[in-house]
């Protein structure tokens, strides 16, 4: 590594001082004069038409500034990072437990709760689609439009079907990973207000302020330069604060009340409606020569993506590219199908499908090592990416491929700090 004047050493992070002093302002810490509190009335059924929605009792409660449903939205009522398939407030049907149906702004948080308790709704319940398998059946209810297929991808490289003949060993396994939550320690929060120039200001806990700005502008039907989104100090995200949380609801309430509106989600609400990690099933067949050289990988990948797309198209685009792992393999196929269901929405979560893919490709490497009586580190070294490797999209890697060094340095460090553990890896 080159000698740097500033890099590759340790400086106190630019935000460390305000964070250790307790002065860093997270979204919930903002207070403004004349500020209202906001809250969301949410569905407690997973799939239903709304037959009746009665907001009048809530509106009549003293101290309630406004109660709004989808009819109040001046602009677009569909958002989403890739596909615009999620409503700000439900207008056609409920697609998951926790869908936002109405929003309330009131003088105190306690009043918000009381107003929410006064909202009455009648549902016409539909069969809820709760598994990938059911989603793919012809007679299943459709969560969006006329198919439950959210996205499919197909990666094809080399000639997988012909490659099996040249393999000395083939391992075949089905891997599945589960649905997880980011559990950032700061629950989602934000506030919105119209400034003296009539610009809608949103201060929020977010990973994605420019995207937020564009969605707020679309919701309100105003130019993007009439909306300002400022990221508050954000208490972790891990992908869970890439989607819209309170930004749209706060802005809508601020628009109608002409007062600042703050929303702070409870832990429960935050976890309930923010995105989750995609659970995946990967049926994978991997072949190698007796020397441990990978010859072919064929994987069929399915996923229940939940009620809305969120980052599913990004996850399904990334996972197949990474399905072999950091190894050379001349023949690869990966077919992936993600489906809509009425389950919690899955989205971006640290790794975008690569953690799931890694459970599969590393499981297969270990299975090969076992079948060939090889050290799991050795089989990885034999196949490791290097400058000049070609990945299954046909891209040649031309620089900065430090994989072998990670293998060697990890092995050497393990020899130093956990020699018995390292010894255990050797084949019997």
């Amino acid at each position, binding site marked *: *590594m080159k000698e*740097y*004047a*500033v*890099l*590759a050493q*340790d*400086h106190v*992070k*630019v935000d460390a001082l305000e964070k250790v002093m307790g002065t860093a302002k997270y979204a919930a810490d903002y207070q403004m004069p004349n500020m209202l509190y906001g809250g969301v009335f949410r569905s*407690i059924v*997973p799939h239903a038409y709304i037959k009746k929605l009665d907001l009048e009792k809530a509106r009549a409660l003293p101290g309630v500034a406004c109660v709004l449903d989808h009819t109040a939205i001046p602009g677009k009522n569909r958002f989403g990072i890739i596909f615009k398939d999620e409503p700000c407030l439900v207008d056609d049907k409920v697609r998951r*437990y926790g869908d936002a149906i109405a929003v309330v702004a009131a003088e105190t948080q306690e009043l918000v709760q009381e107003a929410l308790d006064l909202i009455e709704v009648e549902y016409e319940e539909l069969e*809820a689609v*709760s598994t990938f398998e059911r989603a793919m059946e012809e007679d299943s209810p459709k969560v969006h439009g006329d198919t439950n297929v959210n996205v499919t991808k197909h*990666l*094809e*490289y080399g000639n997988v079907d012909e490659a099996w003949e040249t393999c000395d060993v083939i391992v075949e396994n089905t*891997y*599945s990973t*589960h649905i997880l939550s980011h559990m950032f320690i700061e629950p989602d929060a934000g506030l919105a207000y119209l400034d003296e120039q009539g610009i809608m200001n949103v201060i929020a806990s*977010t990973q*994605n*302020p*420019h995207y937020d700005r564009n969605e707020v502008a679309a919701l309100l039907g105003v130019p993007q330069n009439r909306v*300002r989104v400022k990221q508050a100090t954000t208490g*972790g995200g*891990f992908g869970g*604060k890439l989607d819209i949380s309170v930004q749209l609801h706060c802005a809508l309430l601020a628009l109608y009340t002409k007062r600042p509106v703050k929303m702070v989600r409870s*832990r429960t609400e935050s976890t309930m409606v923010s995105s989750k990690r995609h659970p995946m099933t990967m049926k994978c067949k991997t072949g190698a020569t007796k020397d441990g050289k990978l010859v072919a990988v064929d994987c069929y990948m399915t996923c229940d993506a939940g009620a809305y797309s969120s*980052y599913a198209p*990004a996850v399904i*685009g*990334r996972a197949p*590219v*990474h399905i072999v792992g*950091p190894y050379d393999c001349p023949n690869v196929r990966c077919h992936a199908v993600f489906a809509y269901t009425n*389950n*919690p929405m899955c989205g*971006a979560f*640290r*790794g975008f499908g690569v*953690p799931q893919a*890694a*459970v599969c490709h*590393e*499981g297969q490497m270990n299975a090969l090592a076992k079948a060939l009586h090889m050290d*799991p580190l050795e089989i*990885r070294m034999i196949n490791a990416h290097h400058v000049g490797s070609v990945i299954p999209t*046909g891209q040649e890697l031309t*620089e*900065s491929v430090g994989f072998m*060094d*990670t293998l060697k*340095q*990890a092995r050497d*460090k393990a020899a130093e700090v*956990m020699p018995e553990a390292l010894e*255990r*890896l050797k084949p019997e």
Partner: protein
Amino acid sequence: MKRRGTGVGCMFYGVGNTGLPNPAAAFVQVLGDTSVHVTVGAADIGQGSSTMAASVAAETLGLNYEDIHVVWADTMYAPEGGATSASRQTFITGNAVKNACTQALGELKRTASEELNVPEEDLIFRDREIYSGKDDSIRMTYPALMAAMGKKGRLAVGAGYYNPKTTYLDPKDMSGVPYELYSYATCILEVEVDTDTGEVTLLKAVSAHDVGTPIGIKMVEGQIEGGTAMGTGFVISEKIDIDPKTLAIKNPTLSKYIIETSMDVPVVYPIVVSSEGEAGPFGAKGVGEPALIPSIPATVAAINDALGTDFTSTPIFPADIVKAWKEREAAAK
């Protein structure tokens, strides 16, 4: 009975969005007193993108880290930063900052060249000084340079952006260039499994990460340590439970969704590996997500090694372990 096991987990990770444009931009101005404003769109969620921006700006401009003030993630002032996702901000916003600083350096170099009588290409900007790479006795301080800039009515400003060199992927077979660069990692992890209760104790984890050039060593280590905690928890304790009727999340609280405490995490030995490349700013790559990934398969493998099982699904909870061990014992008989 307590049994120990070791697992290996490796990964590679394409930095930035997959086969899609995902640019980010930065603005920079070196002020008259040599302090600097850098403005980026990138949201800093604690991972350190703003610190990264300050570091890259200081390195590029030849100033000190302390000279840089970063404004971030305010759409009123900051240009598009794209999402803080896909481990992309060090690579993409980092390059944007570097490009913006390089633009600002244009006038700085012209002025220094005039003042020192040294060709622009021979000038070195480092540690608040400007000197000739051929004869380092020919030098001037940054304040002197800024004073000269002021006299000549020149401003050191720059706007830069960067979009990774990728292609759209072919819808037929996904061929193309999905990412401009890749990060790599290897984790070796040891666990102790109690076959009677299914409890898993995470002992030690060595996790080596190729980050190209580390922007800050402790920042990279912090990602690896935190990622290892999240990755091991992925396998042994975390899971969203869904009510089969309402499809509501049954455990949305921190008492019921089990993330690791200070008593649960393994001892982590982070290793910062560097590699040579031109794509990232000074060769830097992302580590945010790579930090998480290898410990997941490593934990699965370590449990399998301890028990002689073949778990292929996550999570692996104590009940699964006890069940698998009983089956294994029954089969052995």
